[in-house]
Each structure stands twice: as structure tokens, then as C-alpha cells.
């Protein structure tokens, strides 16, 4: 495979050992490969404070951005930079985004859990008394499964005890979101796919209640979604893809059914082959920093992480750092919060100094997951 990726060799290789411009290139290339924690810290802190106008397209996903920024700070080991006032306001904001059943109707049938933002919610109310109702918001207002996952992560990261979470309402809602084919929708009006399968499983695990998930149906769906090349797609028939492979494998691990896969060796091969220098999301695509997490974490869960080349993975990720802070998907592109977080997670999994270890299944640090005693990074 090395010949197919020759064009991606770092500049350092070309310039090694030459004088003049070559030497300057080597120095610059070397500097690029230092992990600049300080600028990434700044990047995540700014994210908490204010997102620029071009994040308008993320208006319904602010909860996810909050999770990425907080978890990013946690992985950097810099969570204490979030002062108590900010942490409290974040926790309150998260709870104000919770949609709970109306007063006196705790068993009401609707999609409860957490919203991505206040767009269609009603009055801001962080108190969330169980069955207290809060403001039901506008008629199309409902929770979003990925935002429920993000909220639970963010609360755990901030050390909240989930005391205001209406766990039963969330679990009941999962039942409503699961389709006959076994997969999950993100909201009652939207489509089902593997990302939301993962959300349903990890939410159930975090809340310690699987009554909202028909595991047999879910496992069947995942098994049928494994493609002929060993990777797992967004849906049955779809192309194997790094992100969805992670979602599928993590779901199986959470359900204790990793044994169900029909082609486990194919999956291992698919993951190993995803690495040229960095990791790609699909064969014959360019490497992208976020896949160092999606595929790296998958390999951790399969116990084969050591089959990857940490050195090449690290080099590629570090080249994706930007001077403003954060990581882009490729070297020399603008950063975004997603690639910044997953790029750093990828580095953490390689055991890079100064980064907190991650629980590959929950997608937060072992510390936040309360799993520090049982380090599950199998390989």
C-alpha cells in the first residue's frame, strides 16, 4: 500500500539532510510536529465562550459542541481552567435543554431527553423537577438522541450526579425511537442510522437501563450492516465507513455481543488497512485526523490497536494542527471543533504524554466515565 500513499509523505522526509531552503523546511516541519497544547487549550476555551457567525449551521447542535469542547479540555487535562461559575452555568444550561414530560403526565408518549439548543423550546428553566414539566415549547419541539448523549457526557465531565435527569422518560423514548428493523432514529420525524444506534446503546449503558432497547433486533441490524470488505456502513448495503464502523462496534461491545459479527477478521483487516500515514474513513480516500479516533477506538475495542503504527498516526495528526489552535481534517486547512476533539483523542490513544486516557466506548475520559480503576484499553 505504501506506493499508493507516496504523495502523502511529510515534507520532512524530502528535505532531510539538505542545506539552505531544505534545512528551513526541515526545521519548520519539525516545529509542526510539536504538540502545541497551549493553542488548543485556547481554542476550546473560546469555543465555550462564543461561536462565530459561521456556526449558525450548528444551531441545533450546540449541545454536541459543548460536549466536544468540554471533553477536549478534559483530555488535555485542563478542565480546571473552566471556573466554577462557568461550570455551574453550563450545567444549568444543559438542564434547561432537557425536555421532560408535562406535569402530572410522567408516562406521556413523546420524545424526551435533551435538545441541541433552545430553538423550539419554551421558557428557560434549569430546575427540571421530575414530572415538573417545564415549558413544553413549540409543537415541533422534541429531544434529539445525539444531543441526549452529548448532554449526559457533558454532565459527567463536569462532575454532575445526573440528579435532574429524567432517566425513565429517556429510556421510554428510546423504545419509541427504535424501528422494526432494529435501528434507531434521532427524533420521531427523522431517519434511522448507525450513529443513533450507538447513541441509544451508550445512553442505555450510562443510565444503567436497557429496557428501551430491543437488543436482539439491534444486534441483527448491525450484523447485517457489515459490508463485504469487513467495514460497517451507515445502513445495510452502505459502504463501510470509519465513523459508522466505530458506532457499530461500540454498540456491540455495549450490548456484550461482539461475538455476533460474521466477519471479525475482515473487520480487523479493514481497520488495519485504513492506515496509510494517518487513517482514512474509506479505502482510497485521503487520511483525515478524526479517523485516528473512530478507527483507533474501534481497534482498541477489538484488542488490536497495537497492530497500527502509532508513529505514522501521530505524525499525521500533529501535521493537522493549526497555528490558531485546533485541528483541521487535513494538514493546512482551517480547524473545526470536531476534528480538534477527535484529533486530540487519537493522540491520547497513542499514549501521548500529558493527555488523559479515554474510554473508547463512551467517548469521554476514563476519569469522567468513572472508570479510572478499570483501564479498558485492551491493547
Amino acid at each position, binding site marked *: *500500500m*505504501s*506506493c*499508493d500513499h507516496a504523495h502523502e509523505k511529510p515534507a520532512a522526509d524530502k528535505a532531510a539532510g539538505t542545506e539552505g531552503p531544505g534545512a528551513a523546511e526541515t526545521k519548520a516541519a519539525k516545529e509542526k510536529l510539536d504538540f502545541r497544547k497551549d493553542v488548543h487549550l485556547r481554542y476550546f476555551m473560546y*469555543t*465555550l465562550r*462564543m*461561536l*462565530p*457567525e459561521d456556526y*449558525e*449551521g*450548528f*444551531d*441545533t*447542535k*450546540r449541545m454536541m*459542541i459543548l460536549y466536544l469542547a468540554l471533553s477536549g479540555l478534559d483530555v488535555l487535562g485542563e478542565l480546571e481552567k473552566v471556573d466554577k461559575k462557568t461550570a455551574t*452555568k*453550563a450545567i*444549568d*444550561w444543559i438542564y*434547561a435543554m432537557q425536555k421532560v414530560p408535562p406535569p402530572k403526565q410522567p408516562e406521556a408518549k413523546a420524545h424526551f431527553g435533551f435538545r441541541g*439548543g*433552545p*430553538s*423550539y*423550546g419554551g*421558557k*428557560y428553566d434549569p430546575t427540571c423537577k421530575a414530572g415538573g414539566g417545564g415549558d413544553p415549547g*413549540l*409543537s*415541533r419541539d422534541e429531544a434529539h438522541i445525539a444531543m441526549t448523549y452529548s448532554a449526559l457526557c457533558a454532565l459527567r465531565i463536569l462532575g454532575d450526579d445526573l440528579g435532574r435527569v429524567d432517566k425513565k422518560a429517556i429510556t421510554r423514548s428510546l423504545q419509541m425511537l427504535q424501528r422494526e428493523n432494529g435501528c434507531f432514529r434521532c427524533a420521531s*420525524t*427523522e*431517519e434511522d442510522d448507525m450513529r443513533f444506534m450507538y447513541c441509544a446503546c451508550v445512553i442505555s449503558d450510562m443510565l444503567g437501563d436497557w429496557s428501551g432497547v430491543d437488543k436482539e433486533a439491534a444486534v441483527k441490524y448491525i450484523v447485517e450492516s457489515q*459490508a*463485504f*470488505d*469487513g467495514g460497517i*456502513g*451507515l*445502513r445495510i*448495503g*452502505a*459502504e463501510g465507513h470509519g465513523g459508522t464502523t466505530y458506532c457499530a462496534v461500540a454498540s456491540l461491545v455495549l450490548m456484550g455481543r461482539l461475538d455476533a459479527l460474521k*466477519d471479525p477478521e*475482515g473487520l*480487523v*483487516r479493514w481497520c*488495519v488497512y485504513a*492506515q*496509510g500515514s494517518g487513517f482514512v474513513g*474509506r*479505502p*482510497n480516500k485521503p487520511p483525515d485526523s478524526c479517523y485516528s479516533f473512530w478507527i483507533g477506538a474501534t481497534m482498541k475495542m477489538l484488542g*488490536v490497536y497495537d*497492530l*497500527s*503504527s502509532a508513529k505514522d498516526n501521530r505524525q499525521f495528526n500533529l501535521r493537522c494542527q493549526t497555528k490558531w489552535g485546533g485541528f483541521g481534517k487535513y494538514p493546512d486547512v482551517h480547524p473545526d471543533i470536531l476534528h480538534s476533539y477527535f484529533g486530540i483523542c487519537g493522540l491520547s490513544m497513542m499514549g501521548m504524554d500529558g493527555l488523559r486516557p479515554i474510554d473508547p466506548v463512551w467517548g469521554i475520559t476514563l476519569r469522567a466515565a468513572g472508570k479510572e480503576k478499570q483501564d479498558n484499553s485492551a491493547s
Partner: protein
Amino acid sequence: RMDNLGKTDLTFPLGSSPLWEDITPIPQDDGPDPIVPIAYSKHFVDVMDHFRAIIKKEEHSQRALALTTEVIKVNPANYTGWLFRRECLFALGADLKQELKFVDEIAAVSSKNYQLWHHRRVIVQHMKDAGTELEATTKALLQDPKNYHVWAHRQWVLRTFDLFQNELKFVDLLLKQDIRNNSAWNQRFFVVKNTTGFTKEALSQEIKYAYAAIEKAPNNLSPWNYLRGLVAQKDFDQLDLVNSGAASIIKKDKKCAECYSFLVDMALKFPAANRLKPALKMCEKLKTELAQIRAKYWEYQAANVQAKLEKLEEAKSAETSGNS
């Protein structure tokens, strides 16, 4: 980039227009001191505040429809915007073919958007007519041949309306443009699986197809994976064809890493001493020379091969001692 799309007759700010006189905009309540706030533009706030008011009224009018155009433009991922738009379209009996044209426009700027393709799906389901969809996805894929959303939509169209007839030709076209297009290879598998199935004839044809592609780019992973998918089919019995294909690749290129990798997998899948012993040598060659980045994987594979060899040897000696 969105500014010139889906032209409506709305003028901004909405409040200054007589059309919206009766509407009291509803701001969102983000609390006294929000976290991760967005520095919304005035236009964004204007549109969303009016949209909230329209939702509260459950108004599915022309002006509401026009407003959803703006909602989608300021945030194409706003699934409630798309949802309410559908409600307006259906309530007004709008021209859905025209709607699909609007979606095409948005797709040209925002093609990696789940909501857009879901919207298309619902519209097409409502119309019970996929007439436009092959053309729309063909156009999109010729521009962006690996767009995951478009491929997923196309698969849905093919399956729902049974439109597989010309799909292999389409896959051929894309592979001619780029023999390394993994999405196209995946589509090929999808078509065969959902039409003829992997009959002896289909398998034979597809094996030859894969090797023809491999000849053009021997280390292209996609057709090698395709072959792996073929040999995994039930009651597979065309090993000779597969082996002769591999042999001719090796003859032309003794350093073809992907061929050796494939042969190692074949040895593991169809264990026999005369395949496993050479496989050990191949693992060594791959590890030390041909694909060093995966050195540890070749060690892992070698261990797998060794284990299978030992199992075979055990079985053989058990048989022998049983017979004596």
C-alpha cells in the same frame, strides 16, 4: 453562497414588511448567560423569530413556505425547518417536481447534508414516483463521485422502486473515471446481491471483472476487497479461477503487496498445507519488504497461518494414528 438560491419574494427585515404585520416574532430563550452561544447575524434572528411564531400558529401558508426557504438557507441542518416545509408543501398541494429542483439547488452548495436527502426521500415517497431520482443522483455523483449521502439515497431509490436495470452500466462509467472509487465497488456488490444474486455465473463474471480492474492498478485495495466479498459467498467453488487470476498478477508484478495479502487471506479461508506454507513466506515478505507500515499485522497474520497449519497437522496425525 446560499444568498442567490431559492428566490422568494420576501423582503428583510421581515418586520418592516406589511406581509408580516400580524406576526409577533418569538425570540428563543437561551437563559441569562448562555454557554457556547452563537454570534447570530441579525438576519438569522429575524428569520428564526418569525419561524417560531409561524410554528406556534401552525400556519401552513404560502408565506410560511417562503419562510422555510429562508430557514433552510440560514441553517441547512435545521431538520424542523425541513419538516415544517414538507407540511406546507403537502397542505398547499405544491408542485413537488418543482420542489425537487429547489432541493437540487441547495444540494449543489450543501450536498453533505443528511436532512436534505431525507427531505428528498419523503417527497419522493409521497409522489410514489422516482422519475427524477436516478438523474439527480447521477448528476450529483458525476460531480462528487464518493458522496456518501448521494450513494445512500441512490441505493434507497433502486431498492424501493426496483430500478436496477442500468445500474451496472453506471458503476462501469464511474469506475472508468476512477478505478479506485470504493463507493462504486460497493455499489456493484449491492447491485449483484439485489438482482441475480451470487450465482455461479455471476461469481465467475465478477471475478473476471475484479481481475481486469486489478490489472490496471494492481495495488488498488477496492477490487481485492471485492474479491474477498465474492469468495465469502455461500458454497464458493471457483478457487481455480481465483488462483489463476492471482498467479497471473504475480507473474506481471512480483512485488504486488495486495496480491500476497489476498493469498494469505485465501490460505486462512481455505486451509491446506500447500497454501498455508507459502502464506507464511508471503507474510514475511510483506512485513520486511512490501508493506512495512503494516509490519505488526503481518506478524499477526503469520501467527494465524501458523495456528491453522498446526491444526491441520494435528488433524492429520490424529487421522493417521486412528488408521494404524
